């Protein structure tokens, strides 16, 4: 029986710290990771067959693009296309920011994956810019503050804290 394959893609720092707190949602599923840090955390869940003595978690590093690095978008589009073709996830989940948006958009275009955008809990007053852009490519378009949700989206399913 094939297991659901999840890709967890996000920027380093606070976005990754929040992603770690939701990873237990995907326990038992095939999982791979896309991030901007040089290397994966050593204690990442590798999915079935992973763990001590098993294979390591699959981690792909991408360019840390942001609105301050527009040239980097060309690079990350190329990187993400390669990663998506190799991993072929059923589900792509991101806690932001721009690299996560790229993962959702390309996953939707190339693979029609199920996609989840979770705006950062740091955004207490308004949806982030990349969160606004995620509307058209996120099947589940989520914020972590109920007062930021709306009937037409984004929706509130909970928060990492």
């Amino acid at each position, binding site marked *: *029986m*094939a*297991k*659901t394959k*999840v890709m967890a893609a996000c*920027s*380093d*720092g*606070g*976005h*990754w*710290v*929040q992603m*770690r*707190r*939701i990873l*237990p*949602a*995907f326990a038992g*599923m095939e999982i791979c990771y896309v991030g901007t*840090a*040089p*290397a994966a*955390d*050593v204690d990442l869940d590798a999915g079935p067959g992973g763990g001590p003595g098993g294979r390591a978690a699959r981690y792909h590093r991408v360019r*840390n693009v*942001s609105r*301050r690095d527009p040239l980097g978008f060309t690079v990350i589009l190329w990187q993400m296309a390669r990663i998506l073709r190799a991993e072929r996830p*059923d*589900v792509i*989940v991101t806690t932001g920011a721009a690299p996560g948006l790229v993962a959702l958009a390309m996953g*939707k275009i190339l*693979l*029609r*994956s*199920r*996609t*989840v955008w979770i705006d*950062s*809990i*740091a*955004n*207490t*007053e*308004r949806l*982030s*810019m990349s969160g606004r852009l995620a509307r*058209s*490519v*996120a*099947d*589940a*378009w989520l914020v972590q503050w109920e007062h930021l949700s709306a009937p037409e*989206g984004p*929706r509130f*399913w*909970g*928060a*990492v*804290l």
Partner: protein
Amino acid sequence: MIFVTVGSMFPFDRLIRAMDAFAATRSSCKIAGDCAAGEHAAGERAEEIVAQIGAGGYQPAHMRWVRGYSRADYLRAVLGCDLVVAHAGMGSVITAGEYGKPIVLLPRRAAFGEHNNDHQADTAAWLGGRPGIHVAQGEDALGACIAAARAGIRAGDGKGGDGALRAIDRAAPPEFLARLRAFALGAAAPEFPAGPPVRAARADSR
């Protein structure tokens, strides 16, 4: 040990300069083993200050510093410190919380080119006053916040009965996890009727 961190994205020279100046005032404590500023009990040595400065242009003269850490070394620094002083980034706040360390926050300001917008001020407004979290509205307030955080360490901040802050759980609340799990396994999301097309979930994935 006080651990200063600017996060993984942008430099934050205003915080590093202020903490370097703070570290300079502690020199006499380090040398003499007592403290003219009265922050330490007699005989108690001043703490070491270590800073992660990222791509910052200002290089500290009075505290040890690095530009970045591997994640493992970063967590070791948080684990080994008594107090974190940081930009008001959620990575810093959550990590300090998961390790039960008090944290002093200085929000980045867009007007100074420190971030793209002022959401850190919003974050700090939400978090300020919570157990173990102290917000400095400006760099001049850092010393007072550090003193308050240290007083909290001594008096027993947070809810821990033993005087230590209680570390928070390392996973999101189960209800949120359950909704994400159900979606990943193929549950429909009727709240997003106008969403983009999806591949059908694997028939055997439930």
